[in-house]
């Protein structure tokens, strides 16, 4: 399926929750593939959308390639999902934007189980809560580490467990 066919199918099913398609113009096919994305305006539908993408006949996005996060210049946070279908060889990128002070989105662990660690990393680094996650701990840093270091307003602590941190 091409991107436009997929979007028509998603709009017919999810209506206004599906926002704009952003096309990336580039000479590089890989950049076009990974840089073009679909906006999802309603964070609450993410899980249903993911189930639909995985299970619908003809779509069958059975692999979540990557789940990453962005700290946008307007202060909001975004979660970006790259999914692919190994059967039909098509890919889709969709993005959901969340408010900074209450960033939470339903988990997709129940859809693609390998999202588990991706979401833990997103929580660790960017401070985004994934509701319904089965094991919602930090993945790399200590549980008591202050803050989420990939947020642009993060400042490292002066002391951590009595150890001086800045150079």
């Amino acid at each position, binding site marked *: 399926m091409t991107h436009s066919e997929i979007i028509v199918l998603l709009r017919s099913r999810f209506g206004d929750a599906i926002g704009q398609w952003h096309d990336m113009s580039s000479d590089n096919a890989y950049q076009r593939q990974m840089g073009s994305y679909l906006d999802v305006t309603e964070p609450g539908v993410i899980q249903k959308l993911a189930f639909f993408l995985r299970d619908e006949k003809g779509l069958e996005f059975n692999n979540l390639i990557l789940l990453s996060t962005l700290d946008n210049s307007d202060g909001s946070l975004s979660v970006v999902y790259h999914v692919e279908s190994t059967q039909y060889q098509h890919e889709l990128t969709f993005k959901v934007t969340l408010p900074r002070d209450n960033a939470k989105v339903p988990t997709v662990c129940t859809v693609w189980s390998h999202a588990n660690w991706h979401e833990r990393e997103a929580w660790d680094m960017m401070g985004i809560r994934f509701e319904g996650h089965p094991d919602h701990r930090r993945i790399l*840093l200590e549980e008591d580490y202050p803050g989420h270091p990939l947020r642009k307003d993060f400042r490292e602590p002066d002391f951590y467990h009595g150890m001086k*941190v800045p150079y």
Partner: protein
Amino acid sequence: MLVTSVDTLFNWARLSSLWQMSFGLACCAIEMMSTAASHYDMMRFGVIPRPSPRQSDVIIISGTVTLKMATRIKMLYEQMADPKYVISMGNCSNCGGPYWEYGYHVLRGVDRIIPVDVYVPGCPPRPEALLEGLMRLQEKVREQGKAVDLEV
């Protein structure tokens, strides 16, 4: 018949069998393993890797010390029996290395938690550099506890 002082004898014994705690942290650990392997063979200096802090004399901090690991390193150091020595191997454990400014998870220098005897610079240091560090440590052990002329 050999006449010597007790200090000299003990120091000689210590420097000739510096048992190293086999403990690797990052890419420097690969160089440390290479140093321990047959090509560079640090066993010819009496340095044997031991898997336990209770039985080792020297700990080689071979790599980036993260804040999460730092507390563990301190515990391992405290578990070692005296006399104990520390070699800081590589720029990361010397001073933070490439993480000195933006490494939110890195301790800028292992000497912030434990005392270091020898610093080996490099990123990572070659096995020859680590051997040089070990030999410097041996020279330090040879002179310890004695009134020495500090002009070397």
